């Protein structure tokens, strides 16, 4: 909502995309998964959450407007409803494109006591970004999160589907180097893991 018109001005908004103009990007595998999911529930509406995970994987970790529209189209729901659901949950990346790896620093009580803030500051300085930002090379996105439910390992960070902790600066240097050399996106991997959890053993296909 940046380009806000205050008073006066015509109420002209861009039109929502028409279904025939959507460029659908779900792979065959994604379509198979979605079809399998639809058999799990009495209504397609119930598939919205797993379908969004599929989309987050298929669209490289970021649920763009097109990704949301594709989910809506495939589930025959309204665009707005899908966007409403996606923006409600913080693990769907709807705000902006994310890097290959998303570093989520827990700053909740235990981690804080155990030094989460110096860790966070170190990461910010080292990556040159603040919370919610992505490095210019598109490798890392830094986020602050609430308790990750692993306080025994404080200070803790999460990258993709892995928890790392307790961490210190040396550990982080190492980890960042390793992650930087990994070509596969851990954000996408996390999405895929979650999709697989939704599927039955027989429906998984890898």
């Amino acid at each position, binding site marked *: 909502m940046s380009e806000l018109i205050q008073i006066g001005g015509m109420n002209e908004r861009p039109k*929502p995309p028409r279904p025939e103009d959507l460029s659908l990007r779900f792979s065959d595998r994604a379509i198979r998964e979605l079809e399998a999911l639809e058999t799990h529930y009495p209504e397609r509406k119930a598939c919205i959450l797993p379908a969004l995970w599929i989309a987050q994987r298929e669209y490289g970790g970021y649920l763009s407007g097109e990704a949301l529209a594709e989910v809506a189209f495939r589930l025959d729901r309204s665009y*707005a409803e899908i966007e409403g659901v996606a923006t409600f949950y913080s693990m769907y990346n709807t705000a902006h494109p994310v890097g290959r790896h998303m570093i989520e620093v827990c700053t909740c009580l235990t981690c804080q006591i155990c030094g989460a803030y110096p860790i966070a500051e170190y990461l910010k300085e080292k990556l040159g970004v603040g919370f919610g930002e992505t490095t210019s090379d598109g490798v890392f996105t830094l986020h602050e999160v609430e308790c990750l439910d692993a306080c025994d390992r404080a200070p803790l960070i999460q990258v993709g589907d892995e928890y790392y902790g307790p961490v210190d600066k040396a550990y982080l240097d190492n980890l960042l180097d390793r992650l930087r050399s990994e070509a596969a996106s851990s954000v996408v991997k996390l999405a895929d893991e979650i999709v697989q959890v939704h599927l039955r053993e027989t429906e998984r296909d890898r």
Partner: protein
Amino acid sequence: MAAAPTTDTVTISINDVEIEVPKGELIVDAVKRLGLEIPIFCYHSRMKPVGMCRMCLVEVGFKQPDGSVRKMPKPQAGCTLPASEGMAVYTDTELVHKDRRGVLEFLLINHPLDCPICDRGGECPLQNNTLFYGPSTSRFIELKRHLPKAFPLSRYVTLDLERCIQCGRCVRFTEEISGDAQLAFRFRGANMQPTSFQLTEFESKFSGNVIEICPVGALTSTKYRFRARPWDLETKPAICTVCSNGCSVWFDYRVGKFVRLNGRVNEAVNEEWTCDRGKFGHDFYNSPKRLLAPALRKEDALRTANWAEAYAAILEAFEPGGNAVAALTGPMVSNESYYLLQKLFRGVFRSNNLDHRWTRHLSAASDRLESKMGMPTVATSIEAFEHKSAVLAIGTSLADEEPILFLRLRKAWFKNGTKVVVACDRDTDADSFAHLVLRYRPGTEMALAGGLLAAAVESGRATVPDPVREDLKRYSPSAAASATGVPEDRIREAADILGPNAAIVTTHRLLDVADAQGTLEYLAGLAMCLRAEFNLYALGANDQGALELGIHPELLPSGVALADAEAAAEVGRTMGIEIPREPGLGTHELLRACADGRIKALWLVGCDPFALHADRDLVQRALEGVEFLVVQDIVETEATSYASVILPMLGPAEQDGTYTNMERRVQRLRQVIPDAGDAKPAWRIFAEAMLRAQPQTPFFSAEEIMEEIARVAPAFEVARYDRLGHEGTRL
């Protein structure tokens, strides 16, 4: 108020007063039976309760065997709580008052309190609840949140996000009522925003309703924004005259000028909704192009004249009468005016050259069906759709053509599971809830209608006379399938769904297609065989009235055919005139006759042929060809520049009159705003012309005309002003 004896009731106590209420009735509604009120924001009686705002908290307990009441530890939301036996509700305890103050204080923290410049100030549920139930002071000294103040959601709706209290009414309206689900809450918590997908245009055809149901000033009308303070507005009940549904509305005006339109409750028609076309379609009252004084063409220019000069010129030009004169009408004219127009033409000008129809096929119009098949063309009331088991809507996009019927049909599906079959050559909004969609190729309506009838015959559910059976051979379901492109099994399934409790719906739009007459006969036949109801609904505000009251070259008021000499003479006697025997010309013929000079004088009543007729060229030749053209209208149109005489006419809300909607409901619209300039009601213009032509006692009011209509067309007996019900009455 005792509950209806047929429903299960339970006994509950409200503030220790025992009362019997229907089982499961929500507590917010139940307390009204005792004249009490529970404050609400998110609850709306036409939508499912969601319990989002917590304004309606009450204390609830249950009667124990020893007679004491055991209260639940926490207050409950009255809008989600169904009444059950032995429930004890308290709406007036210290705890409840404290809760209400708390909820309001919480809501007001984030509310900008810009009431002085808010459209809603003075009619705002948030203000009202705060006044009666809220804290008198604020403890909030922190910074208020700031959000977009004028976000353009759609052409008509501007969102002030700071004011939103996140009740979800608007979101639920688009999901449950209009069905387009174009709004949703994005984000959560304090950041939750009711917006459209990716901030694209909120494209609903019913978007205006959210302005009214928003309990604060968050959703505002783009047209009305900052135009008035609600307490400056006067309001009167009116009906909308933009389409044939005839919604009940409140007509708000300020110093005699129309300002805005709000929905008015009429359970039989629009419940409380309006469509955008109607809600925002009344600008013509304030149009700078309003016609305010008669004008007369002298030499090459139109000059302001007085009424006497105008009448004199008109009577002279129409003097030849008979085939040399004609009149065409538009849809926004009252029953009384239509009646008087045809009386003027038949009685004074001795001419049947009258028409109100602008569709491609005229002969196919309802009259033929009535006389040929004995099938009424309007059978189902809007309200009755709720209880139909199946409905076939064919050849029409209901949301565009009959918007309020669309909402009712959607409700029927949503609430009662009515199976809706939508047959149209393009996508329609009704597809979203259709049980079956039959997408036929444009121009193949007749094949589809024939195919449906043939399928019903084949399945043994319908029997038709042998000649029809022979005729239907060409439309066996498989033949129909290949002609229309609709799969054969769908045709069969659609025919199977229809039965005695079904209705077939189409509109005058179908009269624009190639084989309109055949299509209509098959559809009417299908309805007849299955004992379903058939409806061919009108599109213009009072098209149905024009038809019933003889704005037709071959039909007299009450639908009496001119060809039936005896009946026609009888109608003439009641009207006190002699009916000319020679039938008139239909719109197209009539325009052609104007073009080649056979018709010398043409009177256009509230219609712009350029806008209504498909053949622009013909219209132009007609208006140029006719010697004398009277254009009687509310605003200047393209036709006015061809006029010999311009007669300014008052709009529907500026005069008294009745209108017949598509379900044949006659509704009265009393004068709301004062006369504009020198303009007159259409009926008065005709009455004065009649008086000048033939000395007689003129009609002094619309009511007197209705008295005469009721004598001439007995169906209108129920429409006499002293009988007409509050919600109008169906003929």
